[in-house]
């Protein structure tokens, strides 16, 4: 892109000058403290200067008498945190939905869990909390003892209401197409979808609150269990944020070992999704083929970490286990075997009539909409929006490893699946390179159990897109606040938009092309 050398901080400084307080190098490129209302001005300035400005997350923090609202905003070459505060007795702040449409769900979440009211985008009911959760109690506030909250009786059974000519089809919470319990109320006019209303929160386990009562070491294993598929990315995100507060320098070998773990994670996740897409369009053979080829990767994860699913390899200060030299040839041959199978799959995706019919031109998302809705990962890259944290903001050893950013321009389901297919090959290359260039030396250093007071963010590219962590510490062994923004949470708004106007039968393939993970979304 042409505007890669904009200094966004200077732009903000020149436009708003003394009205804002800029802290360079904090929470990304810079943290910008604003008084109530000015956050919109900062955002407007950023949007004007850089077309790739988008919202990554909104973190709500209980600061005692006030509530902190942190807007984490990414641009093409920087990451800025806008810090606003609202009083607890009147927690009102202007919405930013009119500037960035993708912010709606982020605002709802802060409203639901922390009770901040976004004027112009008020939450009705609940987003992630259960329907019988009492009004006016917000679990992430420090004075709320969440286990003592009394729930009201269970709600009535939901029924599809009579809405005249249109028909409302309720998908979920128990549905064969969904592995996870979520509800989507799809309104159809004949065969055409006119509206999709999601109800998430069926998998909400309160992990963000729970992490505040556990130690940092315990939290690594807790946040890992946010998602069983991209678990290594979650553990890495938390560990990296804590290491930033501690200013720990991880040994070189650990950086490469982490890359191998993260890429093995991506490989098994992408193969899973490519197969699952086959299942959703009724092409079960493809599903069985992909899952057959996924099993050797699971064996590799077991070989390197000792467990099939939960690698539990990441730890604060490095990794827990080394890869033995005797295992390296086995890893390489397994990956080469997988590489030989890719041309066949690519040819299937290219020529197979059923795939063409069910995936081409389904769920079309334009580049402009992708930027507006702040989508991430393969969904963004399938629409020509070239964001990949591994390249844009390299972490661990990614800066030293050559690989390509995969971008497709079509923006349909087919393109999103092909991004994943190409990334499988890139992942194989990355692992091979990392194994060949693995530095010698220690793979772990000791770190203190108590973390000094501070706050930090970490970003990494999970299989489904950018995974964001915000950690605030207070000098004890337990964190003060852990905020997680998962990729599916950012991608859901795009599905709600692309499904409209399409056939009801196209809902499953369109939906699965996001690679939805609700245990991530709800936490």
């Amino acid at each position: 892109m042409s505007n890669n050398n904009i200094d966004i901080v200077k732009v903000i400084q020149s436009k708003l000058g003394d009205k804002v307080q800029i802290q360079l190098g904090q929470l990304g490129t810079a943290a910008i403290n604003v008084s109530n209302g000015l956050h919109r001005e900062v955002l407007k300035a950023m949007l004007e200067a850089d077309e790739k400005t988008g919202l990554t997350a909104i973190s709500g923090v209980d600061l005692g008498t006030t509530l902190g609202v942190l807007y984490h905003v990414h641009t093409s070459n920087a990451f800025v945190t806008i810090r606003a505060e609202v009083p607890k007795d009147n927690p009102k702040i202007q919405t930013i939905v009119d500037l960035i449409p993708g912010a709606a769900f982020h605002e709802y979440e802060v409203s639901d869990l922390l009770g901040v009211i976004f004027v112009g985008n008020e939450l009705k009911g609940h987003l992630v909390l259960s329907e019988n959760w009492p009004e006016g109690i917000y679990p992430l506030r420090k004075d709320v003892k969440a286990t003592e909250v009394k729930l009201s009786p269970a709600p009535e059974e939901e029924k599809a209401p009579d809405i005249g000519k249109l028909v409302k089809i309720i998908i979920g919470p128990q549905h064969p197409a969904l592995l996870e319990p979520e509800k989507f109320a799809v309104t159809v006019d004949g065969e055409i979808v006119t509206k999709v209303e999601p109800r998430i929160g069926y998998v909400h386990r309160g992990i963000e609150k729970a992490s505040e009562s556990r130690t940092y070491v315990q939290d690594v294993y807790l946040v890992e269990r946010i998602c069983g598929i991209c678990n290594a990315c979650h553990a890495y995100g938390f560990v990296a944020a804590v290491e930033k507060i501690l200013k720990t320098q991880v040994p070189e070998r650990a950086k490469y070992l982490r890359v191998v773990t993260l890429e093995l994670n991506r490989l098994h996740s992408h193969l899973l999704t490519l197969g699952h897409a086959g299942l959703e369009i009724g092409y079960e053979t493809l599903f069985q083929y992909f899952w057959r080829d996924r099993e050797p990767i699971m064996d590799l994860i077991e070989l390197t970490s000792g467990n099939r699913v939960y690698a539990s390899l990441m730890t604060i200060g490095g990794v827990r286990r080394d890869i033995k030299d005797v295992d390296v040839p086995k890893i390489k041959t397994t990956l080469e075997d997988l590489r030989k199978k890719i041309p066949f799959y690519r040819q299937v995706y290219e020529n197979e009539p059923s795939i063409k019919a069910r995936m081409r031109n389904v769920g079309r998302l334009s580049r402009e909409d992708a930027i507006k809705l702040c989508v991430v990962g393969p969904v963004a890259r399938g629409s020509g929006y070239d964001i990949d944290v591994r390249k844009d903001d390299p972490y661990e050893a990614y800066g030293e490893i050559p690989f390509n950013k995969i971008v497709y321009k079509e923006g349909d389901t087919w393109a999103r699946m092909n991004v994943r297919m190409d990334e499988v090959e890139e992942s194989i290359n990355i692992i091979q390179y990392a194994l060949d260039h693995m530095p010698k030396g220690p793979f772990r250093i000791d770190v203190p159990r108590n973390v000094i007071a501070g706050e930090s963010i970490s970003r990494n590219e999970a299989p489904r897109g950018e995974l964001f962590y915000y950690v605030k510490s207070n000098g004890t062994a337990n964190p003060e606040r852990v905020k997680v923004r998962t990729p599916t949470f950012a991608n859901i708004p795009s599905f709600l938009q692309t499904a409209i106007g399409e056939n009801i039968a196209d809902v499953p393939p369109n939906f699965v092309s996001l690679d939805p993970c609700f245990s991530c979304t709800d936490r």
Partner: protein
Amino acid sequence: MTNTVTWARVKSPWVLHFNSGACNGCDIEIVALLTPKYDVERFGVKLEPSPRHADVLLVTGCVTQQCAERLKRVYDQMPQPKFVVAIGACACSGGVFQGNYNVVGGVDKVIPVTAYIPGCPPRPEAILDGVVKLLNALNPPKPKKLSKQEKQAEALKTEQAKQAVAAPEVVVASQVVKSVIEEVKPIVKQ
């Protein structure tokens, strides 16, 4: 007839999978069971989309507040006899999420559970082992093959036992009835 039904049930258990707030770890392992490496369909195990056709309910997850009511509803829709298998540490006891505000913790707090499979997540082999153990429990153990002499000895034993037990049992029963009547009488009069 019962034997035939049991035989059919053991040979082709249709399972329904319900995620009650799991992290996907156990769920993916259940799906892995259906794929070529493990392939449980060769044992007649079939994943069934509807609760109304299922014999065995495989539940994963720590049961969130939002899911508890739905889990009960799914269980109620299944025809009798039905069996529930709790898969994973969360389904067994709440696991790492025990005590969180939105978590009920453990499938057995909502519906009765027949078999527990621990692990985070359990390996596909462990899930298979759990389901096989459940099915074996349905099948009554086959009687041992006895020789003629043993059979005669056995028959004699049961005969003697019947005679020995039968007489005193009646006495005991009648005594109990009498004593009960005596106890009840004054209450009735009042």
